[in-house]
């Protein structure tokens, strides 16, 4: 009898562990993406970081359209970041500086696609001064 209880208990614990959802760290994904951009590998690995909708606008044979993959390179130094999450969408605000020290913010919309969090929309805000940094997660499509 105690054996049955033990098995039942371990099954419950197992089931709880499988159902537990980990909170995605969107900032970590952004840093990984920035690394791919910096190393020049972003074109080959674009499907790991961008949604299908986003990649529809990217023609890898057209240098001009590659700008869409390189937007994260505008942030050379991150000062702060904020994220907000719903079930399958997330918003990330990155505040930082360009290589020349000019303040810049990127507001990203992430979506969960094939169980991966990928960028679905980006808003690059080239700021005049750092008073323009937002202290919360901005969902880029909500900006007028």
């Amino acid at each position, binding site marked *: 009898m105690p054996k049955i209880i033990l098995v039942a208990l371990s099954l419950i614990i197992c089931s709880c562990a499988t159902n537990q959802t980990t909170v995605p760290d969107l900032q970590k994904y952004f840093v990984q993406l920035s690394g791919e951009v910096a190393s020049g590998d972003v074109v080959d690995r674009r499907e790991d970081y961008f949604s299908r909708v986003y990649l*529809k*606008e990217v023609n890898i044979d057209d*240098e001009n359209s590659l700008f869409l993959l*390189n937007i994260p*390179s505008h942030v050379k130094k991150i000062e702060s970041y904020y994220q907000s999450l719903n079930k399958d969408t997330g918003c990330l605000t990155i505040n930082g500086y360009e290589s020349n020290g000019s303040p810049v913010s990127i507001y990203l919309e992430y979506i969960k696609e094939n169980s991966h969090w990928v960028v679905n929309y980006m808003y*690059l805000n080239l*700021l005049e001064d750092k008073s323009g940094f937002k202290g919360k997660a901005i969902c880029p499509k909500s900006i007028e």
Partner: protein
Amino acid sequence: MNVSRGELKVTIAKLIEVAYSQDKGMTTKIVRSKGAFKLTLDENGNATLSATVGKVTFSGASTLEKIGANIKSVNVSFSNGGGSIVNYHATFDLKVAKIAISGNFDVEKLVTSCSGLLCQAARAMKGRHQAYEMELQRIMGH
């Protein structure tokens, strides 16, 4: 590739310049109107500079091509910054991304640069005049 602040700011100035070459009188009236005015450019390259005093329509496609980032449309809002200073906020739409930039410029300097010899020389060289590009960047607050 990447797009610089300078390039974006110069693009706004160049669009105003194209409007100016299309209709000098109305463009000057709009930019000197001391009120808010707008500049829009759609996916087909149709551009409009408008204010309550009137509007100028022109083609901005070739100006946009020079940025080289497949920008689909542009929206710029201008407001009075006091005296001859005009503040602007621009968004460049790339369908799945947007770039926003703000700044200000002295409208008198811009108008003077566009009616002067420097501007004409630049146009004759199809906008490839380095000194002129630098001058526009400076005027647009870069």
